[in-house]
Structures are given as structure tokens and as C-alpha cells.
């Protein structure tokens, strides 16, 4: 018998050959365990997203506050959505969030989900400054209030395995053998679009604070590109947000005393984070964030003449430099020339964050997930400040135009425990502790800031 005949016989016999060497029950049990793990992994994506947004928020908030407080010290907020937050400090943060209603179908199959969230927020900040301030020691502006917010997430999942991709490229090949490597790489893009519209923010009841809601409209596009083997997640976030006003605490008071208000400014940020999740539950990642913000303070022409520095309580004034700048700007410019036009004090910020993340998330069989997430971040900020603009954005005066550079470093760690309920009706409780430390190493305006935020977050969320 020649080899061709042998091969033909072999082919005929083995083409549909079946062998019963494996114990079906045992094998199936092992597969079932893996299938269940994959379901849990879906939860990890959500977790990653919330962690990502949490980290993003903490940095962005940090920068936002610094932009708003360009006359004050820089502060750091950890703004945790979907959770109830208790920050203990001189001025405690009580961040109560949320009854969250979400309708979620099978995300992995690419079906759109919509979430509605309602929450209440009460927060304040604790930060310390150094001797460069007019008033050394701790300035701890307080902002306590309630906040209601709603957000909609439209996660759209695009998922294509390597096999499918190659199949498309080889559609004419019918049942021929594939000429591509094993399809063990699955790529998916999880892209929730979230729109966050605070209905009511900040009803302060501290006597120092005037009721000035911080209104921000925020749209974020947050695709996560996933490669399951090894498990890498590339999280991309593009965020548009608007700063209307909302200098907390003394900022609002300060603005009021100066008859000054912020002009609504659209700002944006883009973030990329690369995460690696290991089956053991460990997470590591690093990222890059670029943020561009504009802040314009509006001076009402008719009202600026009433403005004097003496009107401002001493602890609202940051340093001599700022005081001089304000005086010079107001004093030097003949506002009469711009009859009935408002004048804007223009600030532009460009911030680059380089965060490194690490953490551990472990789902247990008892529907308990615990872990922690931490990170270090290096920040570089460029600020252009001092320009005066007319209402139509034409430059009135740029003699005080200045360019500042700041570097910063921040660290945070946040343990967390999450309980998950049954079926579609998930009851989640997520107590967490957050700690963050930011230290501006160098400041163009001569202020070294060491804001320090810490707290305990507790949360209850119900997902439909």
C-alpha cells in the first residue's frame, strides 16, 4: 500500500473520528467555572471604568479647582459618583450618592444600556498651605451642600474576535483551513457615552459661603479596548465639561465681593490608560492625560468701581502677587473706554498628568468583591494668565500676560468592598476609603501647595 492510499484511509477514518478519553462531567465543570469567571470579568470592566473615572475625576477636579482658585490655594477633591462618601477632616465631606437605576442588558453582546443616577452630595475640602501665603497655616474652605445629578451611559459594545476578523478577510475560503494564528485574541471596544447633568449642586449652609451652585455639564466618551489574552484594557476617555461658576467656599464669596463671576467655559480633556488585569485579581496600569481648560472671570463695568481690596476678608487673599495683579489690572485699564462692556480676566490651563495605577480586585463566590486601587501621578501644568478680554473676546490688555509652569505630584490609595445582589436586581454596597496627596513642587506664582484629602466612602447602589 503506498503512502497516498494510507493517507486517504487515514483521512476517511479520522475525519469525523470521536474519542471518549475525557470525563465529560469533569471537563464540563472546569469549563463552567471558566465561563462563570468571564461573567465576573464583565463586572471588572465596570469596576475599571468606575475606578478610571474616579481617578480621572480626582485629577480633573484637582486641576479644576486649581483653575478656579487661581487666586487661592489649590485643593483636591475626590468626587466619587455612585457612592456615599464620608470625608473626615476639619471640614468633613459627606458625599451621599445615590439611588442608581440602570437598565442593563447583555453588554457583552453589544446591547445598549442606559443608566440613570440620582444622588445627593455634600462636600467640603481640607487643604494646607505654606508660609508664602498672606495668612500662614491652614486654610480650609468649606462647602457643604446637596447635589442631585443624573447621568446617562450608552455603552455600545463592539466585539470582534481575531477569528471573525480573519474570516471576513477570507470570506471566499469556505471551509478551508485558516491561515492565521489561533484566535485566542479577542478584541472588544466598550464605549459608554456618559452625560452628567447635575440638577442641583451645592446648597451650601456654611455662613461663609453664598449659595452659588456649581454648574457643570459633562459629556464623556469612554471606550475601553480589550484584549483578553493577556488581559489588557486600553481605556480611552474624551471628556467635555463646562465650568460655569462654582468656586467653592471662599471662591464664591471672593467672587461676590469683587462683583465678579465666571464666564461659562467649555473645557476638554483626553485620557488614555492602559490596564493589565491578571487572573489573580491584580491590576496595574499607567496612563496619560491631557487637559485644556479656560477660565474667564467677568468684571462688570458698572460694579468694578465699587471693588476695593479692603472689602475682601484677609483670609481670602492669597498673596501679595495676586493682590498686586488685581490692583494693576483694574487700576491700569480704563474701563470707560469699553463702555457698557464686560471685561474678562482670561486664564488658560494646559495640564498633563502621567498616572501609574496599581490595585487588587477579588470577586468572591459569596458575591463580595474586595480590593483596592492606588496610584501615583506626576503633573505638569502650564498656565497663561493675566490677559484682559472684552466681551467679544478681543484683547483689551495683555501687558500682564504671564506664563506659569507648575509641576506636581500626587498619590492616592483607595480600598474598596463591593457586595452584589441577585440576578438583574443587583444591590451593591461599596464602602471605600480614599486617600490622596498632592504636592505642587514648584509654582510660577511662588506658592507651594500641599493639599491633602482623605475620607471614607460608603455607597449603596441599586442596579436594575
Amino acid at each position: 500500500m503506498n503512502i497516498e492510499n494510507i493517507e486517504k484511509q487515514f483521512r476517511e477514518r479520522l475525519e469525523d473520528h470521536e474519542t471518549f478519553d475525557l470525563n465529560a462531567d469533569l471537563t464540563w465543570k472546569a469549563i463552567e467555572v471558566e465561563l462563570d469567571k468571564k461573567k465576573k470579568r464583565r463586572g471588572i470592566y465596570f469596576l475599571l471604568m468606575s475606578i478610571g473615572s474616579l481617578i480621572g475625576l480626582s485629577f480633573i477636579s484637582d486641576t479644576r479647582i486649581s483653575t478656579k482658585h487661581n487666586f487661592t490655594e489649590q485643593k483636591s477633591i475626590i468626587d466619587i459618583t455612585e457612592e456615599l462618601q464620608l470625608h473626615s477632616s476639619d471640614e468633613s465631606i459627606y458625599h451621599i450618592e445615590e439611588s442608581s437605576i440602570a437598565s442593563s442588558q447583555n453588554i457583552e453582546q453589544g446591547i445598549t444600556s442606559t443608566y440613570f443616577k440620582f444622588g445627593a452630595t455634600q462636600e467640603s475640602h481640607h487643604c494646607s498651605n505654606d508660609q508664602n501665603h498672606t495668612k500662614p497655616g491652614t486654610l480650609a474652605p468649606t462647602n457643604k451642600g446637596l447635589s442631585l445629578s443624573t447621568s446617562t451611559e450608552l455603552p455600545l459594545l463592539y466585539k470582534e474576535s481575531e477569528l471573525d476578523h480573519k474570516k471576513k478577510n477570507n470570506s471566499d475560503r469556505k471551509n478551508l483551513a485558516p491561515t492565521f494564528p489561533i484566535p485566542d485574541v479577542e478584541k472588544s471596544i466598550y464605549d459608554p457615552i456618559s452625560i452628567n447633568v447635575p440638577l442641583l449642586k451645592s446648597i451650601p449652609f456654611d455662613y461663609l459661603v453664598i449659595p452659588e451652585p456649581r454648574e457643570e455639564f459633562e459629556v464623556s466618551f469612554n471606550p475601553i479596548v480589550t484584549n483578553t489574552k493577556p488581559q489588557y484594557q486600553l481605556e480611552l476617555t474624551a471628556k467635555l465639561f463646562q465650568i460655569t461658576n462654582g468656586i467653592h467656599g471662599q471662591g464664591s464669596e471672593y467672587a461676590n465681593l469683587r462683583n465678579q463671576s465666571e464666564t461659562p467655559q467649555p473645557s476638554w480633556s483626553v485620557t488614555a490608560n492602559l490596564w493589565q488585569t491578571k487572573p489573580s485579581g491584580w491590576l496595574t496600569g499607567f496612563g496619560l492625560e491631557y487637559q485644556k481648560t479656560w477660565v474667564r472671570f467677568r468684571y462688570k463695568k458698572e460694579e468694578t468701581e465699587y471693588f476695593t481690596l479692603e472689602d475682601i476678608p484677609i483670609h481670602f487673599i492669597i498673596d501679595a502677587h495676586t493682590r498686586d495683579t488685581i490692583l494693576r489690572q483694574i487700576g491700569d485699564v480704563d474701563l470707560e473706554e469699553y463702555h457698557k462692556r464686560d471685561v474678562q480676566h482670561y486664564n488658560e490651563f494646559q495640564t498633563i498628568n502621567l498616572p501609574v495605577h496599581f490595585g487588587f480586585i477579588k470577586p468572591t463566590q459569596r458575591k463580595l468583591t474586595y480590593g483596592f486601587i492606588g496610584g501615583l501621578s506626576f503633573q505638569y501644568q502650564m498656565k497663561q494668565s493675566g490677559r484682559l478680554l472684552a466681551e467679544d473676546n478681543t484683547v483689551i490688555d495683555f501687558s500682564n500676560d504671564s506664563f506659569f509652569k507648575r509641576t506636581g505630584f500626587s498619590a492616592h490609595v483607595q480600598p474598596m468592598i463591593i457586595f452584589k445582589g441577585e440576578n438583574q436586581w443587583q444591590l451593591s454596597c461599596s464602602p471605600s476609603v480614599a486617600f490622596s496627596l498632592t504636592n505642587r513642587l514648584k509654582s510660577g506664582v511662588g506658592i507651594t501647595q500641599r493639599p491633602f484629602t482623605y475620607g471614607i466612602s460608603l455607597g449603596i447602589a441599586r442596579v436594575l
Partner: protein
Amino acid sequence: MKNNLNTLIKGCQRQDRNSQTELFKLYLPYVTSICKRYLRDESLLQDAVQEVFLLVFKSLPTSFNEEKGAIKPWIRKIAINSSIKFNQRYQGFEELAQQEYEKKNFVTAEINKKTSDQEILLLIRTIPQSYREVFNLYAIDGYSHQEIAQLLGISIESSRKRLQRARANLKERIKEFKNINFTKSA
């Protein structure tokens, strides 16, 4: 039967656990046979089969298109690719396992009076790993040399050479196998 299979596939695409169980039971022996034919070490069989089914269940909702072909060849492709990937991943375990396999299984096969299909499977398993992959792909599963070269990351010429060596090796084995059979029977 076809309707039942379609129902099963649709169930799997919905990630219905019962449908997944049924599909698994239906194709387990088939997948096991393919993996066994390709794997360098039989101790990897369980893991490889698990991996195949996990891939099948994961890819079914998005990758499998009934109009483009039947489920069985689709599963076969995944099984072949997975096995080859396993072999690449566990390089180095080969030779020892191979020798052990040769010593034990011929005798076992003969003593147990296994089916001739099993004997063929055993025969193929005695071909050295690198030649066996090419032989399996070319002779049993109908791949072209070009496809094999792309799949294994080798040249077309290497693929041809390996096939020749596999054939030569197989001829020798057939003779030995018959001798063993004969000897034992006597």
C-alpha cells in the same frame, strides 16, 4: 436533527447554559480526537479541550455565521488552532513525553484490542511532533502547504520537507506496529 442543532447554536449565542452543555456533550468526543491528534503531550488534552470549548462559546455569539459554513468545521478549525498554540506554548515537554508514549501505548493498544481508528491515531501520535503537525494538517485536515506555512510560521519548503519526513517516519512505524502486533498475537 439540523433544527435541534440550530436551536442549540442559537441558545449558545444567547449564552444559555443548557444549550452550551448540550453542544459540549455533542462535540466533546470530536474535539478530543482532534486535540489528541495534534497535541504533543496527552497530559495537555484536558486543558486544550477546555480551551477549545471556551473559545467556541466565547466566539459563537459574534464570530460564527451559519450562512458561511457549518458548525462542525468551524469547531474543527478552533480545535486545530488551539492545539497548535498549545504545542507552541509547551515546547520542551515534547521528547520525553513522546518516548514514554511510544513505549506504553503500542502495547496498551494491542493488549486492549482497540479499534483500528484508535490504532491509526496511535500511529500518528508516534510521528515526531513537528512532522506530525504538518502531516495532520496536510493529510487529514486538507490544508495546503501555503496555509500550513502561514499557520506554523515556517516556509513552504519546510512544510514540504516535514511532510516527507512524516511520511517516511510513518512508513517505518507501520512496519514496527505490524511487527508488534504480530509478535504479540503469536
